[in-house]
């Protein structure tokens, strides 16, 4: 669709909204005279970010690493589970409710349990991240593996294809575009999962990410730092999501056709 194509408007219009929002924000702060610890202005936030740039970069990188690790585990695990589900309706019917369990269980409620088992640190954060980002991979890949074109299936059967050949030459390549859709959803969730995981488990000296930084900023009533942490989290989410989209377009182009 032409609307999806890259054009100057796709860059300029959102930037314009950003600039207008920042100006309005600054004006409101100056007119209202709000204290910076209640609501700092954009200038104050920018200053804080600049002052803490090295620490913020470190926190963001650590969160990014656990988010990407959890996401990668989700992709591998999700594809393996989906392959199993696609092979038999009995397996699918037996296992699918548990896949839904992962989607519906409140991650905030389960995080302390994960820490009780895995301890404080990066491992627990990765487990929480995996739990939150696994489900979209399973649902979309399973759908793709099952939604095989009947005509193509006839073609394979006519040529006496084995079940293995049908899986690897027809079902799996056909499911790649579904997998990519699931990966895009999971990529965003992985960052959310990593930060939630860090709220609970990221206190150990070995792993201090953005979740930890946000908690500390809250305790110090440093609202400008809270904004800085939020902005870094959002940017991290955008980077992970965009990377998945771009890498998908680069390496999976053949399997992600349109029309």
């Amino acid at each position, binding site marked *: 669709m032409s609307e999806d194509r890259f054009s100057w408007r796709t860059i300029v219009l959102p930037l314009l909204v950003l600039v207008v929002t920042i100006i309005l924000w600054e004006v409101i702060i100056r007119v209202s005279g709000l204290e910076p610890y209640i609501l700092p202005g954009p200038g104050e936030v920018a200053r804080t970010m600049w002052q803490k740039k090295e620490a913020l970069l470190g926190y963001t990188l650590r969160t990014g690493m656990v988010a990407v690790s959890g996401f990668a585990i989700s992709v591998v695990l999700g594809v393996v589970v989906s392959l199993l589900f696609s092979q038999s309706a009995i397996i699918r019917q037996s296992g699918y409710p548990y896949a839904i369990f992962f989607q519906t269980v409140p991650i905030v409620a389960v995080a302390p349990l994960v820490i009780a088992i895995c301890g404080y640190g990066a491992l627990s954060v990765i487990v929480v991240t995996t739990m939150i980002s696994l489900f979209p991979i399973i649902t979309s890949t399973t759908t793709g593996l099952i939604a095989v*074109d009947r*005509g*193509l299936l*006839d*073609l*394979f*059967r*006519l*040529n*006496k*294809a084995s079940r293995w*050949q049908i899986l690897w*030459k*027809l079902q799996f*390549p*056909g499911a*790649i575009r579904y997998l990519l859709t699931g990966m895009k959803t999971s990529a965003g969730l992985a960052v959310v999962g990593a930060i939630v995981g860090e709220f609970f488990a990221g206190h150990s000296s070995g792993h201090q990410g953005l979740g930890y930084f946000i908690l500390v900023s809250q305790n110090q009533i440093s609202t400008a730092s809270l904004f800085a942490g939020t902005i870094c989290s959002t940017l991290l989410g955008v980077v992970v999501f965009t990377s998945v989209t771009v890498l998908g377009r680069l390496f999976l182009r*053949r*399997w992600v*056709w*349109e*029309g």
Partner: protein
Amino acid sequence: MSAIQFRDIEKQFTPESVVVAIDRLEIPAGQFVSLVGPSGCGKSTLLRMVAGVDDPSRGEVTLSDSEHSQCAFVFQDANLIPWRTAQENVRLPLELRGPVTAEQRRTIDQAIEMVGLRKEDFRKFPRMLSGGMRMRVSLARAMVTQPNVLLLDEPFAALDDLLRNQLNEQLLELWYQQNWTSLFVTHNVPEAVFLSQRILVMHARPGRIVADLEVPFEYPRKPLLRNDPDFARFCGEVIAKLAGVTLV
């Protein structure tokens, strides 16, 4: 010698309804036979039973001195794999049989050239090809296994008349060279008459053969045959049988 034999065939999808019922039908090796009939009369089901994709509920379909693996099927939809290039689509049946040899690779290229595709089209994906070109790739894919029975299920139904005529002529030329036993399903009577040596007219509910007509035109057939008054007369005969069938 018969290449395909049907004996007391019955196909049911539910216990109450018989879709196709054929007592006896023999198709000699190398013959080009067309099946015409109203929608739902079981023409495609008959083809699928010959291919071994569907099994008859009763009776048997036999292919003499050959296995089902030597059957090739051309579908109504070109049925190409979207993530494979034209060349890779044609290669698929050979790939499913085992590693593709250098000689087979030459056969693949020859098959694509024989159906009238150019070298630059080999690496194109189906979405980059026109409807007619996709059908040609589908035909090349059927040819590449060097079948002795070619089953075609309304392969040109979605194409415009001009393209359909062109592909009919090309198919006939290929059949003339390869001498496949061909079973061609179509709704288009002039197409059936132009291509076939024999036309089987079918009736629905249950699907059965009500007329077995020999087409009285010599091969090789030229495009001008379509303008011949005898051609039009024979088409009229087939249509009358078909209309009779429909009106019953």
